[in-house]
């Protein structure tokens, strides 16, 4: 099953998406972890998380965005302008970060999507901000109903919340199985599963995830030099994780946007659906775009370090990513105060040349923390 997971997650328009489209289904793309995808799901639309899968080409994107913009956003824009996401029937923007906003503005300016909607997400969790975001979710719901001529009832929304929570439960289970001394999944495999979760219909993912979990129940990954946690910026690069794991640094947990931060907080299935979504997508959001709750992000990392018994933490950020670039410094200082070794790495997204440098840095880090083969 993991081979099938890897195969599907390596392709942008995967077989499952093609089948969905062939059956007349709609697909709407989003990029940011703050997007309340349940609204799309409730309308019978497949929410699809935009990804670049390590695409190193940015020549077209660079004539719109600048070289001072994050290479992940430039890679995504490149694919968008090349037509890799032409299967999508709409696009949802959020103000996740300044680079993401620029990416969407240029995408819309150069190649407008048939449907485009902007969900505005506050940077704080004050009562006023929460109230504003709840209203923002209601407006989003109305816009989807209007565009796609469908009615999203509270019941259909609750069903969608249950479906999306079922995805999160599977992912949490996979992460749980990585805590053992001999983990059941490698970090690269966990990323493949994660990528699949936001690129196929929920039921399909749950079936595949259940099969993968059953297949790997007794699997034991051994022979690594150290147990590492990977944290930092948007990174959907299996190649990067493979490079780290190839030199013996097994990623046993993470604090990534394309990773644990996207599914860690459970949604309240019994609460008012809009409030439940506002809570999980804003109040519980673990993202450095939030400016008033660093201690919560730090505690999340510290708990993960303890639970997965990691030997060291690798914090990465894509060059020019301000939110992660600064948060990583705060985290490094706080982790080092607690004698947890940290490797802070700035990288260029999708750069093959950078992978070699990163391998070398990780090798040195493993030696520094005493991880011998």
């Amino acid at each position, binding site marked *: 099953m993991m081979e099938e997971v890897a195969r599907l997650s390596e392709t942008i328009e995967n077989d499952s998406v093609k089948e969905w489209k062939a059956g007349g289904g709609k697909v709407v793309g989003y990029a940011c972890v703050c997007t309340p995808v349940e609204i799309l799901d409730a309308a019978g639309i497949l929410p699809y998380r935009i990804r670049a899968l390590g695409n190193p080409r940015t020549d077209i994107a660079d004539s719109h965005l600048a070289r001072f913009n994050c290479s992940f956003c430039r890679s995504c824009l490149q694919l968008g302008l090349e037509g890799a996401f032409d299967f999508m029937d709409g696009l949802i923007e959020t103000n996740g970060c300044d680079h993401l*906003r620029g990416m969407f503005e240029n995408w819309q300016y150069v190649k407008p999507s048939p449907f485009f909607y902007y969900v505005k997400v506050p940077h704080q969790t004050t009562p006023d901000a929460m109230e504003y975001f709840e209203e923002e979710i209601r407006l989003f719901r109305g816009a989807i109903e209007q565009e796609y001529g469908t009615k999203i009832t509270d019941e259909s929304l609750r069903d969608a919340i249950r479906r999306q929570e079922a995805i999160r439960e599977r992912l949490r289970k996979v992460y749980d199985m990585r805590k053992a001394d001999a983990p059941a999944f490698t970090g690269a495999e966990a990323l493949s599963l994660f990528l699949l979760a936001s690129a196929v219909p929920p039921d399909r993912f749950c079936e595949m995830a259940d099969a993968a979990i059953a297949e790997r129940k007794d699997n034991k990954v051994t022979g690594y030099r150290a147990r590492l946690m990977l944290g930092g910026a948007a990174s959907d690069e299996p190649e990067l994780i493979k490079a780290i794991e190839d030199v013996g640094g097994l990623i046993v947990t993470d604090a990534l946007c394309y990773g644990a931060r996207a599914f860690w907080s459970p949604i309240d299935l019994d609460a008012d659906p809009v409030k439940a979504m506002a809570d999980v997508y804003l109040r519980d959001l673990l993202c450095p775009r939030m400016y008033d709750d660093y201690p919560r992000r730090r505690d999340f990392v510290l708990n993960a370090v303890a639970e997965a018994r990691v030997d060291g933490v690798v914090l990465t950020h894509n060059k020019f990513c301000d939110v992660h670039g600064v948060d990583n410094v705060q985290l490094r200082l706080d982790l080092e105060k607690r004698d947890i070794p940290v490797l802070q790495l700035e990288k260029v997204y999708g750069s093959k040349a950078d992978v070699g440098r990163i391998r070398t840095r990780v090798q040195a880090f493993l030696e520094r923390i005493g991880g011998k083969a």
Partner: protein
Amino acid sequence: MPIIAGAPRVPEGLFNRVFQMMEMIERVPDDFSDEEVRGIIALMPSDVADTLEGFFARRVRTASVAYLKMIARWMRDAKEAKASGKKVILVPFNFVPELLHAFENAVPLTSEVLTSLGAGATQGKGHRYWDYAMGLGIPDHLCSASTIELGSMLTEDDFEADAIISCTAGACDANSKIHEFVANYLGIPQFILEKPVDDTERGIEQYRKNFYSMVQSLEDFVGERIDEGRLRDVVEKCNRAAELHYQLWELKKNSPSPVPNLFSFFIYGCRFTMWGKQEAIDCLEIMVAESRKRLAAGDYPAAAEIARCAWLYVGYYIDYNGLFNWMEEQGYTYLFDVLDLFFPEPIPTGSKQEMLDGICEAARTFPMTRQMGADSMSVAWIDDAIHMAREMGADCGIYCGHHACKQTWSVISIVQKELMERAGAPTLCLQGDAWLSGMTPMSALQEDIDQFVKNVVVKKRAPRSVRSKKNSR
């Protein structure tokens, strides 16, 4: 420790070093001779001398002295406030200082203004504080405008603020993150004023809620409710300053512009520091008077005004003489930059609520907040740039390409295209750091500007004049 026993300790920290210079400025006469200027400049280290040479050029000297004395007063207020137990609040440039002037027991200190002074007028141009921040691991793509001053605070060997207001949430990740970092690192409170990226009525109402919530938090922190009488005095002064600001705008519409290029920097320097205080009014009145004198005399530093340039983002603050004065001497007028675009509205003074509402609206429409904090960064920016380019008769746009500004970099290609199509103005995209002299030398920037004007702007004008001759036949 002083190297020589008994010698006074050379101050450390950006604030302290700039303040030392300002103490000297406070003592100079309002109008002093060329000989005295040469004497002062000869005593200064080269980095400082260059800046003072620019500020004390004959044609801007009176206004420069007024401006620097205003800044000296502003810094002294912070020193005295600290000594007397009042709260010194570090604010970013896109915060309304008049709100803090309305408090009896709080004063604003604007980080980017301090960096601009340090980058222009201290030996080493503030690099050591940038380097300190880099040493902690702060990424080199952060904004030097805030990081230089905040880096100095991080050394814990400089004048320290009691709290930080961060009002860049929604408009700038880089600044929001460094504010958060410094507040956490130094253990001082941070008050966030978020601008929703939403200019609908709902978004405006949300901003109002955020603003009033921040005012409440500030009142609690300072231990004082804003007094209506004091607020009225501040708002009346804001209104007077706004009148003077618009008088300068009107003067700039003349060609050649009678408003010296450097005044653009002085105007927003007033806005970001002493707006709502008599010192800002005094400084603006001098600028208006000086510009009127130039208009009456037909003075312009070059033989002709060759290009009227709209700086679409900020300028460069690493060499005031090399940018503002040099441009003017070539016949290139610096009409405005984005920091000039704050469009102050008269604030009704009837009630406390009306006055606070007026300040709130000024904050919501402040430079950068209004453009980068808008629903669409490019649309809001283009609207302002095109409106002002038309108002001022700009021939071209110049984008400084400050490295850290990912928001403007991410949409400059759209702005450039729209400005050309809708206002006929070509845009030069430079690359440089506006506050770090070590990135792109001023000589290279001058060369790019010069080539652009000569090869694009002037040539673009020529066919137009040919066309108008044909039409007149």
